């Protein structure tokens, strides 16, 4: 069966429809069939519909996403309470240990993202992986920095990513590879993303799952939860009426 490839982190300037359209078309041309774009918390339904329309024209499925950057665990909880049902994907940028731990154990968080170049504030360790593996959170790795950084900083990033990918695999925690691209030049084909992941020792099969099976599973699970038929995990309304 053909894989369905997804990039859950396209970062166009959403106030510029031309830019959004160019990035979506490029993603479609490179073989992605599902994309997600981070939206502001106060975005309107009209804005979302406009992006959905652009995606439909490019024959790509669109998932709405929000990137949370809470400073405290309480702020994270309050944000999640407010926005969880508005967006299909919730990502948390974990730049403190407390926030990382809270995000890892909260079942409303889909993606754990860590500060890309602030290596001291990357709290993805074994404790974090264990918490995340008991909930539904997934480790997200943005490939943009592998392309833009050079020299010792890239070497350091590769070393950190190798360690984190190893920990995640050890705890059977899924990994999602995203582009984090803000322009077309930084977009790569899914197979090329997998090739880049070999730089931090992710096996080819795991890397391909990280651009296909893992992101698609997150969106599928959340769409099911957000549908009006959903009652609880494993329970959904099949039919309503007097004859039931």
């Amino acid at each position: 069966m053909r894989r369905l490839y997804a990039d859950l982190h396209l970062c166009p300037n959403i106030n510029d429809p031309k830019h959004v359209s160019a990035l979506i078309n490029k993603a479609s041309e490179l073989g992605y069939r599902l994309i997600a774009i981070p939206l502001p918390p106060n975005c309107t339904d009209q804005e979302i519909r406009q992006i959905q329309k652009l995606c439909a024209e490019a024959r790509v499925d669109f998932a709405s996403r929000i990137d949370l950057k809470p400073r405290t665990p309480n702020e994270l909880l309050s944000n999640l309470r407010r926005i969880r049902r508005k967006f299909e994907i919730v990502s948390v940028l974990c730049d403190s240990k407390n926030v990382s731990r809270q995000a890892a154990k909260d079942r409303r968080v889909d993606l754990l993202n860590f500060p890309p170049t602030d290596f001291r504030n990357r709290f993805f360790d074994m404790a974090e992986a264990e918490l995340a593996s008991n909930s539904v959170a997934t480790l997200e790795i943005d490939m943009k920095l592998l392309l833009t950084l050079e020299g010792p900083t890239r070497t350091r990033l590769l070393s950190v990513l190798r360690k984190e990918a190893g920990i995640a695999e050890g705890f059977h925690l899924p990994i999602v590879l995203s582009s984090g691209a803000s322009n077309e030049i930084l977009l790569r084909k899914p197979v090329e993303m997998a090739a880049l992941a070999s730089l931090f020792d992710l096996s080819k099969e795991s890397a391909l799952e990280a651009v296909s099976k893992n992101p698609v599973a997150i969106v599928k699970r959340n769409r099911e939860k957000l549908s009006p038929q959903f009652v609880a995990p494993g329970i959904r309304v099949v039919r309503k009426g007097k004859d039931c």
Partner: protein
Amino acid sequence: MALAIDSGVVFDSREFMDAVWGAVGKLYGEYGASKSGLTMIDYDAEQGFAVIRVSLVAIDMARAALASMTRIGNKPIAVHVVSVSGTIKALYDKTKR
């Protein structure tokens, strides 16, 4: 390996090949690059199309290095692998050229 060069600028084959060698060298060092057996077979600057030969054992290495290329000189660029094949004839058949 058939490659598509995504850039608004036209580069000559020398510039392109130097950039490919540079990318492989940066990621894998001179020792790794020496194992890759990179050779330019065909280059169409106008169409942004290139065919390069790569040693079989270095295919994954070359894929990663090509994906890591973001500029030639100061000009932004992206290189995408269009197709990979064991023979040049089959490669041209696959890419319909």
